[in-house]
């Protein structure tokens, strides 16, 4: 494996152009959390012409519903949730300027096409490594939909958050490529 690539938010076109499927990255900066219920609310806001609770341009969205934090901790365990459940909402958000997503598992055709069209990127984090990942989260603040509990939108500051490029801006899918290699 090649050396890990350090990237810092916001995700510019230049950063995205340099990322290729299979690259291991360490992400630093600000990322926003959203999973099932928050996605539905974001899309409802867009459809009724309201502003989103944060400026989505050039951001990374992390599909996660953290466990509650213990006193003195920044956040509870915070590994990725399965991404395909967000597929129905993702192209709309990419059209509005979202540039990166972190989750786990494959995406549908519409998302892949939208990633190519909007020059975006999809990362996978290790599913189930919630304790390990939370050690890279340095601050956490709920900025919207507090009533959703674990599904509220959090603004996170991360340092060297580990992820792997699964879909690059050309739509190369690491899951398909690697699985073929080891298939018997």
């Amino acid at each position, binding site marked *: 494996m090649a050396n890990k690539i350090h990237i810092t938010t916001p995700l510019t076109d230049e950063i995205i152009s340099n990322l290729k499927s299979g690259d291991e990255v360490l992400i630093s900066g600000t990322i926003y959390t959203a999973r099932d219920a928050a996605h539905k609310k974001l899309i409802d806001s867009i459809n009724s012409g309201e502003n989103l609770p944060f400026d989505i341009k050039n951001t990374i969205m992390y599909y996660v519903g953290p*466990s509650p934090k213990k006193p003195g901790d920044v956040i509870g*365990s915070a590994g990725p*949730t399965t991404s395909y459940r967000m597929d129905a909402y993702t192209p709309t958000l990419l059209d509005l300027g979202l540039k990166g997503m972190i989750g786990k598992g494959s995406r549908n055709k519409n998302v892949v096409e939208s990633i190519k069209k909007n020059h975006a990127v999809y990362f996978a984090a290790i599913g189930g490594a*919630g304790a*390990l990942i939370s050690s890279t989260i340095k601050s956490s603040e709920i900025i919207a939909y507090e009533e959703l509990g*674990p599904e509220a939108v959090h603004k996170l500051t991360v340092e060297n958050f580990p992820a792997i490029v699964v879909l690059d801006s050309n739509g190369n899918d690491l899951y398909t490529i690697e*699985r073929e290699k*080891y298939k018997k």
Partner: protein
Amino acid sequence: MKEINVALIENTIEKMCIDANYYLNKDIKYALVKSSLAEASPLGKNIINDILENAKLAEEKNVPMCQDTGMAVIFITIGQEVHFVGGNLTEAINNGVRMGYSKGYLRKSVVKDPLNRVNTNDNTPAIIHYDIVPGDKVKITLAPKGFGSENMSKTKMLVPSDGINGVEDFIVETVSLAGSNPCPPIIVGVGIGGTLEKAAILAKKALTLDIDKTNPNEYYREMETRLLKKINNLGIGPQGLGGNTTALAVKILTYPTHIAGLPVAVNINCHAARHIEIEL
């Protein structure tokens, strides 16, 4: 008649919820170590090592291994000589879950209604399977079930002519379609026979078996070995990023069935494979 106060059940369930979510079971840990040595993909090897590192960190810090601390599934086997006192057993089980998920800082992942989705905020109700047996013991098995893998599970009503090949094809196809979604390396629980719901319950129960204990039935033991090989030949690998460790184990449970039927259920579990058992 042996009396058991339901307060004991409540406190036991509370502790079990926390322990199951904080500490990776030894059988799974051992299987992960073994698979990391045998994994052909360098990235896959790194991922398994990260999973083990994560388990170590969770154990040291007393935090859940995974943020999806699951819906609490409980199998409770009650000896018919036991008399519960001090309150309602089902309420006591749910109270135990409520306290465990609160005191253990575990995620509340249950919504009150499947379509009008409002969180119950205490992770209840639990899914409880009761069984009455001879004797005066109470055995409780608790398996907090995450839904990344639950969503990839399937039940199919095959017919007798589909036979063993039809069953094996359905199991392998289910794992193949699940791909990277259920957090591989996975454990595959299989229920064969009974009725629609019996097969599904058997598949869930199969996920609570220790994976280092072999199936006492030779026919099904060989079938498990064959299926594990077929599944690991799919190439899915750790986290679906390629490799020869897609599953750590296949566990099969069976039950008599109808002359017209061959129900099969495949319940997939992620690498945390949480299950804990206690006898009172």
